[in-house]
């Protein structure tokens, strides 16, 4: 299947505006053909609304703060749209990565390869 038929929502869970990481990832995903909807700094309600309204196939969260803020958004997305895949990047320390993985969220910490992230997007949206 063609990546261009797949939509990815990208959001930042915190009020921390470091935009380097998500911008690079968004560019790589767009270069791979995906449609990327970036909503920037968003709270749980914003993320859940966008996931529904935009009818996305994958959610990418940039996490720069406490893992519990992200977990609240993840659980709400999972309750509203069961089965919608989620992956995450950012300054996610090892203990927090484990918590996210336990919720079925794939984690791409700093130093991850863009090729691996694009590969994950294709796998999680079923284009590969």
């Amino acid at each position, binding site marked *: 299947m063609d990546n261009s038929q797949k939509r990815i929502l990208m959001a*930042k*869970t*915190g*009020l*921390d*505006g*470091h*935009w*380097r990481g*998500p*911008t*690079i990832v968004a*560019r790589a995903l767009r270069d791979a053909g995906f449609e990327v909807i*970036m909503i*920037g*700094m968003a*709270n*749980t*309600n914003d993320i859940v609304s966008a996931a529904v309204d935009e009818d996305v196939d994958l959610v990418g969260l940039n996490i720069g*703060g*406490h*893992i*519990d*803020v992200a977990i609240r958004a993840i659980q709400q997305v999972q309750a509203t749209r069961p089965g919608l895949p989620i992956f995450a990047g950012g*300054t*996610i*320390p*090892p*203990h*927090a990565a484990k918590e996210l993985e336990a919720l079925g969220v794939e984690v791409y*910490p*700093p*130093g991850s*390869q*863009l*090729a691996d992230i694009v590969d994950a997007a294709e796998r999680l949206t079923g284009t590969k």
Partner: protein
Amino acid sequence: MTENSDKNSIACSSGIELKPYYTAADIPEAHRARIDVAPGEAPFHRGFHPSGYRSKPWRIFQLSGFGKPEDENERIKFLLRNGETGFIMEHDRNTGDHCYNVNHPEVIARREDVGLTGAVMQSVRDVAICMDGLPIDSSFGHAGGAVVQHAPFALAAYWTVAKQRGFDLGKIAGTGQSDFNLTYLGCVTKEQIPTDAGLRFNADIIEFCDQHLPRWVPVSIAGYNAADTGLTPDQELGTLFANAVEYLDEIKRRGKMPLERAARGCGGVSFRASIHIIEEACKMRAARLMWNQLLSERYGINDTKVSNLRIHCVTAGSKMTYQQPLNNIVRGTAMALGAILGGVQSLGVSGYDEALSIPSEHAHQMSVRIQQILQEETGISDVTDPLGGSYYVETLTAQLVEKAWQFFESIQRQGGYLAALDSGWLHAQAAENQYQEFMATESGAQKIIGVNCFREDESPFHVDGFMGTDDAFDVATERLNDVLRTRHESAAAKALKQLELDCRSDRNIMPAMMDALSAEVTLGEIGDVYREVFGNWNTPIQT
């Protein structure tokens, strides 16, 4: 260092091609005459002082803060006990940067984030707790307020506490930074005042300090925040001076204080020290030279007390890796070395756990130890400008000056620094560089040890993220309610009204801000005035 496809062609981060070795003939003609100028003499590329670190060791100055004000106070005291020679108070990003109280819906939605990157300080009472027992009369203090819209609050709070403790504002030294690059380029807030209002705030601070706090660095432009967002060293230099010109032109337009004194105030800046050691050392040399040129040529200022740039430097957080974090101790040392060889007066070394979290106590201690070992054991402090006269270093210094002025001119063609922020032009430059830098790592052209090569890790130490405290939000909520319940309400209301009137007029806002802090007006109330009076900056990038 990036390699082109031609293996023989190597360029430094600024894109200047490097030769395998240099000779005297490589040094540009115009720069040759400067080589024998002594450190401490104009144009100052060789250093700020003839005896350099022998008489004036660089200040060990670490960014610090998290949790409740008392948590931050404890960490600062820990650092001072371990040999830090200045101190930095960091305010919480959720509340401070946005001028929100903890009861703002966007903060409540992220309550666990509160206090993660700085202490929550919503009133002068909180700031008093954070400053308890700190040597504010004998040390160089950073009051926080790195963010432009937050600086008037943070500074006024610090000064109000200093006054309450009986200190003469005319004698205390420090800074609050108030830097555009931080939240208009690097780490963009969800809401903030437009850039023209920010320029007015900074000019107000410069004028207020001129009258009341002559030893204070009123604004400190942070090239760091531009560089760690993606600008190359030459662009970092050009951007910093384009920013300085905005301040000086505004002060000149207002005509209320001598420009020399404003230039002195703007001449305490900070840069990023990245990993290309020699290029970074050259950058610091170039910066001093450029400041001298700028003041002399654009403003006719030749007073060497003014045109001698003072530099604080922080090692590049973005160069610290998540993988094999102990390797970052070496990276921190290498980056610190570049800054020191360039003759900076103040230095912070990023924690080895930078890519995971804010620094743990041990990571913080290590950042201090790196500096102490360099300062006390290596002999690096013995001779000023140890690289001076090197064919390579003098050539690259001169080339950086030239390339940085070209970038400065590019910004001027965009309408100036603030216009280049408003339009997103600077963000586009940074984004393109970020991507190229990332792709060089991705392809392996740029090796990052432990990340894209040599990934085997035998370390017996498990480094995990330091998460601070978990009661910052709850305690801040209690304390906010307590202030609102127990302050003199009519005095607070009156002071807040006066602040609003002054914001709407062209009066300097700082006197009213001082009165507001004394009357225990809170951060979020002040932020509400800003949002009402100034509106919101139209962010040119999608974060």
